[in-house]
């Protein structure tokens, strides 16, 4: 399938879509006019698809500076009567939370869907927060799809409910839904309304105390009304396999494991699948509980529905055993899978687990942690900085490397060991400032170009204002790298591929008043090292921008043009096996063969050629 087929294939046909691709088709079939995001795994591909087809579909799409701005752009569109769609990873909703909490109060006119892609087990994230709790905190209705078809359908359904009740809706996916592929039946794509009109009404849109008191009441009324829908909708349905001893309540990806396990084990049971799960359909749940002897709740990550069920049992003084996370029938953390769910059910039914045979080996399993790619511009930047530090005879324990969210945090691996602290987007600067103020250690902060615009700028203002002794290295690889290469405010194109105003990080830093600001190309190792030596001796905030495009971009552009990458080889006569390239520079394309000779894996080498500067024996040569 080509990406454009998500737009071009007509109603009645089928496509094999990723959950994230199905989300875009849902938006197209629902007539969404405006979509916005800040990229974040596992939601990133939604934006990548919009980037490819928004223009053609007549939708306005943008990669916003951060999730809060993305949220606000979509909120305004909805206030102007257009349908909007904002999506982000789960922790992105933290950044947007300030706007979320109040948008639920003001409400919307056009439908608005917020998609939060949660990441249980933290495949690509810093925590595994369960944003179903965020739904309850904000009082925003919540939909939980179980597969790509449902992702598409629930976006359409949700936009109708959103418009009917003038409230945004939250869709919570998880990695196993966002990155699940399945067959999706396509519906009709409807025409997009281009421009909205904002009808003024401060009592609805200005959250000052004189108005919010009323808004709060109206929100409660909406939730009460929507609860009637969650009680009646056939999105919340019972699957009966012919038993009443055991009832299982589940949602999202967890439901898939339940139904597969029930079929595999031939269990006679009743399953309540909740796809419209907040406001919690209490009567539906109560009626369901009354038809079974005991109840098992299968949900990822927090015991949210389980607590809801226990509350209902308590209120009606019903004495029924509830199995779930709280009694440790199922694990309290991480994502589930069919084996975890079947173990839970076995434990519940038999009180013990059946023995499982597993194939085993005693051979060592090589570790394969994610690494900076061959040709990555971050590697020479770190390499040059490391050399500057050694030349100045600074001790590693006297340096704090305050890193940030992005590929460059991979420098935490040996031999670089250059990420000591990293908690969230933009934290390198705030954390760095705190360390600069409270220790005598030298603080070096790293931030990517996209992250700089996202949440780094307030931190830099703060550091400059407070005259911190801090070296900030902006690792400008001209893209949002870790999420697959999306544009950001420092790039001259926007989310639809149109020309955009490029913001210069160097000018921003100068404008803020940083005393030393320099841009270098990290591919020139010697020059980079000299600039770092100067910056490390600077007594206030120094900003060094290491600017060179990400290897993935260079590859993509080169492939498009049909260019052949230069190849490199080791001249074995010159090589003295000092292993600087292998052990200090650590480009993954290098390997030591069985005969102890150093070699370059041509499949992995990206042809950047920086290693030529690293080799003291000049043994690395271009293949002619």
């Amino acid at each position, binding site marked *: *399938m080509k990406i454009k087929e998500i737009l071009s294939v007509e109603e009645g046909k089928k496509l*094999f879509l990723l959950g994230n691709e199905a989300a875009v088709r849902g938006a197209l079939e629902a007539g969404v006019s405006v979509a916005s995001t800040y990229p974040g795994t596992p939601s990133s591909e939604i934006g990548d698809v919009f980037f490819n087809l928004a223009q053609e579909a007549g939708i306005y799409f943008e990669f916003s500076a951060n999730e809060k701005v993305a949220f606000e752009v979509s909120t305004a569109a909805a206030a102007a009567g257009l349908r909007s769609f904002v999506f982000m990873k789960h922790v992105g909703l933290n950044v947007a939370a300030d706007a979320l909490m109040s948008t639920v109060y003001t409400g919307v006119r056009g439908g608005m869907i917020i998609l939060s892609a949660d990441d249980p087990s933290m495949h690509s994230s810093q925590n595994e927060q369960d944003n179903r709790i965020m739904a309850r905190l904000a009082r925003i209705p919540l939909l939980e799809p179980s597969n790509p078809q449902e992702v598409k359908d629930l976006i359409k359904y949700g936009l109708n409910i959103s418009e009917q009740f003038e409230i945004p809706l939250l869709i919570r996916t998880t990695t196993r839904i966002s990155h699940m592929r399945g067959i999706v039946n396509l519906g009709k794509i409807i025409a997009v309304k281009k421009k909205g009109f904002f009808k003024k009404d401060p009592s609805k849109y200005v959250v000052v105390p004189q108005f919010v008191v009323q808004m709060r009441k109206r929100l409660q009324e909406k939730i009460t009304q929507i609860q009637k829908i969650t009680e009646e909708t056939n999105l919340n349905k019972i699957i009966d396999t012919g038993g009443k001893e055991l009832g299982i309540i589940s949602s999202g990806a967890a439901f898939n494991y339940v139904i597969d396990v029930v079929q595999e084990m031939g269990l006679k049971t009743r399953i309540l699948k909740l796809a419209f799960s907040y406001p919690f359909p209490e009567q539906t749940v109560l009626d369901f509980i009354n038809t079974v002897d005991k109840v098992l709740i299968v949900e990822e990550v927090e015991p949210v529905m389980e607590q809801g069920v226990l509350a209902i049992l308590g209120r009606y003084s019903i004495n029924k055993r509830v199995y779930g996370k709280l009694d440790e029938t199922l694990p309290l953390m991480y994502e589930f899978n069919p084996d975890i769910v079947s173990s839970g059910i076995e434990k519940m039914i038999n009180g013990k687990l059946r023995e499982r*045979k597993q194939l085993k*080996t005693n051979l*060592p*399993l090589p570790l394969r942690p994610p690494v900076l790619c061959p040709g990555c511009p971050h590697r020479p930047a770190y390499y040059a900085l490391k050399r500057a530090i050694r030349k100045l005879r600074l001790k590693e324990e006297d340096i704090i490397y305050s890193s940030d969210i992005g590929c460059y945090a991979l420098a935490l691996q040996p031999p670089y060991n250059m990420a000591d602290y990293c908690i969230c987007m933009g934290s390198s600067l705030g954390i760095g400032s705190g360390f600069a103020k409270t220790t005598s250690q030298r603080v070096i902060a790293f931030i990517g170009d996209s992250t700089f615009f996202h949440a780094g700028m307030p931190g830099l203002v703060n550091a400059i204002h407070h005259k911190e002794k801090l070296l900030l290295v902006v690792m400008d690889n001209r893209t949002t790298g870790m999420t697959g290469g999306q544009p950001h405010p420092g790039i001259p194109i926007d989310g639809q591929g149109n020309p955009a105003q490029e913001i210069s990080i160097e000018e921003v830093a100068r404008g803020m008043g940083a005393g030393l600001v320099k841009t270098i190309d990290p591919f020139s190792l010697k020059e980079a090292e000299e600039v770092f030596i100067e910056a490390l001796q600077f007594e206030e905030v120094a900003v060094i921008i290491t600017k060179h495009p990400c290897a993935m971009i260079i590859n993509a552009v080169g492939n498009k043009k049909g260019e052949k990458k230069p190849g490199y080889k080791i001249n074995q006569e010159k090589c003295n096996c000092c292993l600087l390239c*292998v052990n200090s520079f650590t480009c993954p394309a290098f390997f030591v063969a069985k005969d102890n000779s150093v070699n370059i894996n041509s499949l992995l080498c990206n042809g950047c050629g920086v290693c030529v500067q690293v080799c003291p024996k000049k043994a690395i040569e271009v293949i002619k």
Partner: protein
Amino acid sequence: MKKIYKIYLIGVGGQGTIKASTIIGEAAMKQGLNVVMSEVHGMAQRGGTVVTELKIGDAHSPLIEEGSADLLIAFEPAEALKALNKINRQTFVIINSSPIIPFTISLGISEYPEVEEIIKELKKIIKNLLVLNAREIAREAGNIISENMVLLGAGVASPEFPVDKELIIQTMKENLPLASWEVNLRALENGFKKAKELKINLPILN
């Protein structure tokens, strides 16, 4: 066909495992079969282990239950060892004998067993093992980057593979760049042929 046919693919970021899996899934859909698939994106793709799981048939979740995969395609020999929990003695296992040595080896923080050692070990525990040098076959076809199509071809040649080869080829055409089409097709065919040749020496399936 079995009620649910389960395929587990494991490799290293950049080897094209996701592409190969997507082609299988799309082709299965074209054949009128139900299919679900799970893939890995993001951080893990930076040279880390990449896993995709496919279930063809009446399944809701693509995640394969322990020890129940019907077909394992390991794009890298040592990665095959990491998939042992998903397979059983009867699983049909295809292994690319071309290793990708991670940087942790030269740094001495991890060990990489000899490829011969890995194959010997797998032969002990698995009945149906097919080893081929996919990188070499891809090189002969025109480009080592087509390694994934060699392995896909070998997968298609496996005994109970439920999707028609012709549909796989048609789907490849829709998913791969036109410029490299001939190399990719040759890679698939050579992988298929090699697997058929090698299989003669395999014990009978039970």
